[in-house]
């Protein structure tokens, strides 16, 4: 196979950090090449250098035999190097066709759009990928998976020879993931060199041909996927052996903390009943869109249920708003850190104290010393890597951001903590730290509910697992019955038809 793109000794320095340190690797035509590494290892920087978003300080990029300098995304795209963003780079108000050709719309000499050509070309690109998305649909009306397909169609439309996928499955269901993999294979068959960045080992071993491991801005090595295993890749990534990947809390259950009876919300979920005890880690597994987040949001008072009862420590309660839930000792750590969990421009100190300003102030005047003490306490406890209390959290890695989200809710000393996808999009090392932390919380007597789409995680850390599908609890597994097979069976029996998942919003 020919090398389509090769990177040699590329260096990129940001103030205080050497993000890329003489990185060399190459992408062959028609291969899927995984780029793995912990957060902060330099994957995103490398990807941005390739896509023309960052200019490298040194080194050489050779594309199709000639050295190039890409200094804009447009330039990269003209050369056939396309980036499929993790946070999608689309205009929701524009049509699918317009988004595919964004920035390169066909016009006549007067600048008038050639709408028919635009539509036809977009249709051709979508057809080539076997997608049934209509070019005239408004992008904002599509599901995340279909929006992503629009970005992939862009790669097709611009005749890409290198396509870079950044965490493409982060918000996809299993069916959608399979569809995406089919598309990636279609690109591969056409001789496109695919770079696949992901944290999910099972996916990497499913789809990639070679794996390049980055650590601290340096390449640790490139290996054939067929000749390696998860253990050795993990070792290369973190530079040490992870004795045990998951930490399950010791069983020391106390009284019932929360009981839910017949909770129903039309169109989202119905008849959900379960309970969780102090010291217990309860896993809530289900595909994206099964209604897991909606259930816990309803418990927490973000939404109001149509019917059903909540019992908190034996007493019937209702939470009209999250405030009442927080006051009772519940905490909900939401799924999307950036949208719901953190104020990105604030530092760790302010983010930590944000929901508890009453406890951190005297007659409405902030007690900064107390804030700083708390910040230091949690920085040490959760081993958060930050330069200081005022460093904006937007500049931290995903893992460290997630730790601040946890700190923020832990300092309220909750009795029940609900974690929605606590390790989504963060690296193996941080994941393991967060699992350890969850076990520690349960052992201290907290009731914990963990929502996760990652089966090994749910099985590895929970004492009991509930499976959810299409808005209903479909099975409950005790520790002895928990296995991937049982879980898959439970949710797939109730798997929605593909047509439904495709058209459903969100």
């Amino acid at each position: 196979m020919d090398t389509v793109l090769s990177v040699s000794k590329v260096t990129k320095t940001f103030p205080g950090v050497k993000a890329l340190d003489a990185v060399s690797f190459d992408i062959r035509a028609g291969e899927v090449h995984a780029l793995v590494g912990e957060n902060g290892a330099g994957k995103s920087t490398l990807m941005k250098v390739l896509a023309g978003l960052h200019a490298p300080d040194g080194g050489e990029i050779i594309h199709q035999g000639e050295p190039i300098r890409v200094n804009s995304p447009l330039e990269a795209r003209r050369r056939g190097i396309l980036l499929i963003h993790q946070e999608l780079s689309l205009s929701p108000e524009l049509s699918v066709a317009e988004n595919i050709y964004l920035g390169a719309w066909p016009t006549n000499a007067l600048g008038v759009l050639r709408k028919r050509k635009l539509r036809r070309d977009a249709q051709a690109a979508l057809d080539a990928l076997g997608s049934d998305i209509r070019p005239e649909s408004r992008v904002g009306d599509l599901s995340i998976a279909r929006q992503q397909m629009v970005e992939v169609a862009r790669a097709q439309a611009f005749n890409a020879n290198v396509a870079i996928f950044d965490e493409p499955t982060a918000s996809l269901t299993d069916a959608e993931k399979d569809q995406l993999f089919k598309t990636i294979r279609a690109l591969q068959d056409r001789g496109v060199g695919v770079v696949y960045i992901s944290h999910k080992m099972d996916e990497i071993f499913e789809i990639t041909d070679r794996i390049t491991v980055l650590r601290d801005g340096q390449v640790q090595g490139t290996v054939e996927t067929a000749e390696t295993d998860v253990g050795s890749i993990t070792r290369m990534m973190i530079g040490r052996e992870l004795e045990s990947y998951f930490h399950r809390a010791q069983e020391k259950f106390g009284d019932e903390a929360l009981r839910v009876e017949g909770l129903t919300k039309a169109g989202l979920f119905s008849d959900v009943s379960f309970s969780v005890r102090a010291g217990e880690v309860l896993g809530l597994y289900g595909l994206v869109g099964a209604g897991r987040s909606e259930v816990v949001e309803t418990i927490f008072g973000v939404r109001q249920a149509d019917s059903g009862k909540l019992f908190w420590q034996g007493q019937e309660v209702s939470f009209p708003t999250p405030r009442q839930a927080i006051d009772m000792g519940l905490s909900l750590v939401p799924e999307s850190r950036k949208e719901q969990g953190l104020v990105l421009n604030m530092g760790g100190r302010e983010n930590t104290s944000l929901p508890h300003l009453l406890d951190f102030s005297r007659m409405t005047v902030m007690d900064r010393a107390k804030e700083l003490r708390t910040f230091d306490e949690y920085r040490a406890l959760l081993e958060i890597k930050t330069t200081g209390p005022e460093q904006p959290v937007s500049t931290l890695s995903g893992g460290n951001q997630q730790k601040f989200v946890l700190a923020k809710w832990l300092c309220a000393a909750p009795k029940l903590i609900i974690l929605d996808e606590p390790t989504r999009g963060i690296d193996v090392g941080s994941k393991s730290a967060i699992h350890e932390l969850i076990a520690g919380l349960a052992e201290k007597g907290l009731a914990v509910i963990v929502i996760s789409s990652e089966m090994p995680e749910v099985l590895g850390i929970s004492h009991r697992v509930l499976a959810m599908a299409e808005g209903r609890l479909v099975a409950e597994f005790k520790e002895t019955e928990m296995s991937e097979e049982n879980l898959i069976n439970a949710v797939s029996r109730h798997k929605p038809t593909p047509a439904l998942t495709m058209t459903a919003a969100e």
Partner: protein
Amino acid sequence: MSMPTPFMADRRIGKALANLLMRNHIWVFLTLAILVFSFSSPYFLTLNNLGNVLTQGAFIGILAVGMTMVMINGEIDLSVGATLALASALAIGLQDSIGVWPAVFTGFLSGVALGALNGTLVALSGMHSFIVTLGALIGIRGLVFVYSGENALMVTDFSYTEYPEIYLGPVSLTAIIFFALALFFQWVLTSTRHGRETYAVGDNIEAANDAGIKIKRHKVINFTICGAMAAIAGILLSMRLGTAEPNAGRIWELWTIIAVVLGGTRLIGGFGNMWMTIGGVLTLAVLRNGLRLLNTPNYVELMVMGGVLILALSLDKLLAHKGVH
């Protein structure tokens, strides 16, 4: 979100309806306003009066056409009222020295130049357009006072005031120009690269940048269009009044923004069109006219208008919530 099958059909129809209402709420509002005034005043639903409504609304309307372009682009222009005053002052003040049409043309150019200046400052400085054009609003108004010597300028050749007296039935030339400009720029928005890229920039500026769209160029063009529209409105106003007041167009920028937002164009950019703006402009004009016919005291009129604005926008918000999420 996937949901049980029986709900799907119902929900989809409801959603489509809500979407339709949400995207066209202004026409519902306009119809209501017309109905109410038709029943409460015998003078309202006459051809003559409706023609007046169009003419009165057309000045804000022409400003709103430019403002819509700028707002879809994700910016705002507060200086349109002042630019209107300057163009109007130049168009009248220069007539004696350089002749009528050269004066009008100079007035027009002043708007184009100030619009281009606004756009360039916004694009190059990276300052928010709210600040840049707030400065322009104050500065240009000062310039008008300096130029006019704080007096109203009068035309000497009164044939100048007869130009806008061309009517197509009850519809004045001014109103025709408003509709023509609105339709032309609606076409620009939907059918030209500049128009569509204006949406792309306002909708997701990072995606637009990554795609290599020349963001700054589009901003400069749209501010220039906005300035040009303000100048056209100013010139038409000077023709209609025969004088140029240094205070002309004061707080019209606010009425313009209200008309555009009332129509449903999104203040933060990426969504809107000229049909919405026409709806907003007409609603505003109908409300003003109707309240006057009912002999509403001036200040009560302002209170009603303020209330209506907030009501219309909360309706928009309410429908938006029900429609999509």
